[in-house]
């Protein structure tokens, strides 16, 4: 692909030529601004309203519209803000583990010489869980991991252990376990899509030039798959932060995460607490993203990602 075209894509000249050619057909001049208006109305404004609610209070199931910092102060005094830190920590751990298992798997699936049928079946297997109720899938693990569950029965039955293992259920371990299983497809699918479109010729060229498999991976495949990796991280991190079923079913009430805390606040109709908790975690995420962007920029990876995206 020519460098000229690459430069053009971002330049005003390129923009004009592109839009000039198709403006008449799709009216793309108004598509983005028009949708932006709708988007503002259904996303941005509600979030701003939610934020403003964090300065109110709830007394006896009624919201008191008397602006103050009381909700924010109580958030920190009661230690409730800890649920956001805990949620973030667990979500990040889960995402990292997903990437570690998911990337090699996606690589194997896309470039490991798999047949068409294998690909179709594996992709279908990765998609089907979306159709099935998460709670009935998760509830099953309790019968498997419990003190008298399947795993412990097998282990004690074969005399491998004397007493049943207790940490397999109702701990942070089991919550991690449940989440890793639930979010595996959301990591693999975008990574696979990105790796799959990488031209075989590039990989062969790299090998012909004497690169080791690791160098090919590091210098060719990984940079080209970065958009998919970023998408996978985002697809996994977001839902993991909002995890609700796994902590309540496998955490035994000891792993209090954001959604559980919000649900509890709801039993007293405390919208301001919901608002403050949400605002706090969005701010934390923003800080985290900025740090990620800065680190990525230091290594020059991200800008190249955008260029990859654009070329």
């Amino acid at each position: 692909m020519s460098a000229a075209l690459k430069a053009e894509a971002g330049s005003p000249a390129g923009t004009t030529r592109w839009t000039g050619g198709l403006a008449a057909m799709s009216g793309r001049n108004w598509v983005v601004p028009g949708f932006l208006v709708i988007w503002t109305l259904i996303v941005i404004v509600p979030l701003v309203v939610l934020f403003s609610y964090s300065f109110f209070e709830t007394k006896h199931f009624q919201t008191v519209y008397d602006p103050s910092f009381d909700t924010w102060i109580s958030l920190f005094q009661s230690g409730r803000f800890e649920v956001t830190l805990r949620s973030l920590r667990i979500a990040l751990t889960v995402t990292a583990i997903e990437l570690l298992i998911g990337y090699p798997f996606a690589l194997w699936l896309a470039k490991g010489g798999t047949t068409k049928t294998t690909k179709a079946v594996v992709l279908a297997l990765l998609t089907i869980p979306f159709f099935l109720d998460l709670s009935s899938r998760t509830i099953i693990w309790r019968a498997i991991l419990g003190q008298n569950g399947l795993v412990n029965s097998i282990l004690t039955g074969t005399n491998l252990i004397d007493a049943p293992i207790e940490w397999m259920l109702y701990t942070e371990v089991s919550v991690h376990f449940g989440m890793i299983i639930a979010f595996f497809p959301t990591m693999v699918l975008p990574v696979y899509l990105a790796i799959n479109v990488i031209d075989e010729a590039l990989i062969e060229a790299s090998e012909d030039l004497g690169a080791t498999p690791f160098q090919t991976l590091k210098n060719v495949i990984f940079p080209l798959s970065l958009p998919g990796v970023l998408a996978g991280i985002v697809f996994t991190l977001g839902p993991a932060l909002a995890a609700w079923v796994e902590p309540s079913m496998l955490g035994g009430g000891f792993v209090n995460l954001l959604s559980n805390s919000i649900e509890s606040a709801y039993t007293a109709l405390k919208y301001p607490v919901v608002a403050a908790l949400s605002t706090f975690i969005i701010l934390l995420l923003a800080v985290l993203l900025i740090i990620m962007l800065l680190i990525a920029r230091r290594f020059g990876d991200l800008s190249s990602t955008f260029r990859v995206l654009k070329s």
Partner: protein
Amino acid sequence: MAISEHTHLTSTTTPQDRGEWSYWSGWKPLGKWGGLLMLFCIYFPLAWLALMSISERPLSGIPLPFSLQHYRALFADTKWVEPFGASILIALLVGIVSATVATLVGRALPRTRNPGGLLLLFLLPLFVPGMSLGAALFIFARSVLELKLGFWSIFIGHFVWAFPFSLLIILVLTTRFDNRLIEAASDLGASSWRSFWDIEFPLLMPGIIGAGLFGFLLSFNEVLRTIFLRGTEKTMPVWNWIMAASQQSQVPIIFALATIVLLVTLPLLAGMFWLVFARLDKS
């Protein structure tokens, strides 16, 4: 098609002997079996669930004795049909609308002045926990606008959730799209509609299908936002959620239903993906 400037780095290869560990033949099986183990962990409870759906006491953890009573109960009790139909309908709508809008926006976005900033704005719902966004939309629609909630608000909640996913999938394709094809077509005198339909659309097709599929799937299982936005309506996951909290347990029925959904979707999806591959190979 896509080449990054990283590729030239491969020519500055370090001596091969330093990377010998990377020739180890175990890497590939490791990647393969790691993922297959995860698939096993996903499907083991599903198989267990299917087994339990023909068990007399599904929550006991022991499958025996077998019985088809839950399937009979499922077909005798039609209360689940309405939420099930509602879920399918909303999911279809969300899938179609988000695929269409994502295609329109995804084609236009890379050519705007500040694509990065706009993209972040459109991806915002990914970073807002489900219950928070549900509560935000609820407060805005109910307390501020005083609208009555129902299917329309569930749809908006689901669309806001699904759109970022659809957009990203489309963008993966549009940003790699070779503009020269379009330019060549218009040089040859093709109308802009024709060049879209004949050239761009087929190339974007896998992405559009993917975007629609993601929209459908995300909507079909959505519960965190729906419980805020449903008004008096019920979707399948919300019905399950209510039933799981009730004393008159419907869980055995839910197991039976999940098993049927599994048996229907497995061959369907496998067939669809196989078709996609066969088609992609031809073109």
